[in-house]
């Protein structure tokens, strides 16, 4: 079945450092979504990418969709303690297909 590779599994950064998490698929994707889950909370939708090479920004967060639509990244500039949590990508291979979640990247920020 469809598998979503997300790396790294865990990252611990100093406040103010940058952070990046990556998702890779062996197949071409219809779209990819990113979610954030705070400790003890539920996943919250951040963004959806649909177009090849698409780049979207939300304040300090930059999301990219690869040209081949097989990979994606989430980059956080100058992390803050409020960025702490687990970041998940979720992939859909075809329009109308169920989302498959990656294992997530746990981000811890030292102040």
């Amino acid at each position, binding site marked *: 079945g469809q598998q979503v590779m997300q790396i790294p599994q865990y990252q611990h950064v100093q406040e103010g450092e940058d952070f990046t998490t990556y998702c890779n698929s062996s197949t071409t994707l219809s779209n990819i979504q990113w979610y954030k889950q705070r400790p003890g909370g539920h*996943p919250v939708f951040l963004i959806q990418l649909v177009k090849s090479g698409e780049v979207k920004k939300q304040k300090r967060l930059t999301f990219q969709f690869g040209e081949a639509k097989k990979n994606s990244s989430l980059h956080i500039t100058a992390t803050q303690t409020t960025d702490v949590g687990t970041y*998940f990508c979720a992939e859909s291979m075809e329009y109308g*297909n169920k989302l498959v*979640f990656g294992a997530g990247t746990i981000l811890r920020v030292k102040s």
Partner: protein
Amino acid sequence: NAGVTQTPKFRILKIGQSMTLQCTQDMNHNYMYWYRQDPGMGLKLIYYSVGAGITDKGEVPNGYNVSRSTTEDFPLRLELAAPSQTSVYFCASSYIQGNSPLHFGNGTRLTVT
């Protein structure tokens, strides 16, 4: 709008007991999902529904059952609880499957001992 509401928040079951996790949404979404999340792991799809009266299995359906009698409600039933079902359960809904955001409930933390 309350969004997606799950009850209970916490529950401890003994092996072999049964229970129903409740989920309701007020966004008029056709699509609803049940996920489980084990510590340090991602979200595994248990069951999903594309509309009232229609349900289908996800990745890990064994030991669970669902029903969808109305658009709003999507309860998850555990018939014979086992320790392997200790997990956090999330219900979610969406407007379109795969191409619109999932709205999650706050989750139910279940322990089976």
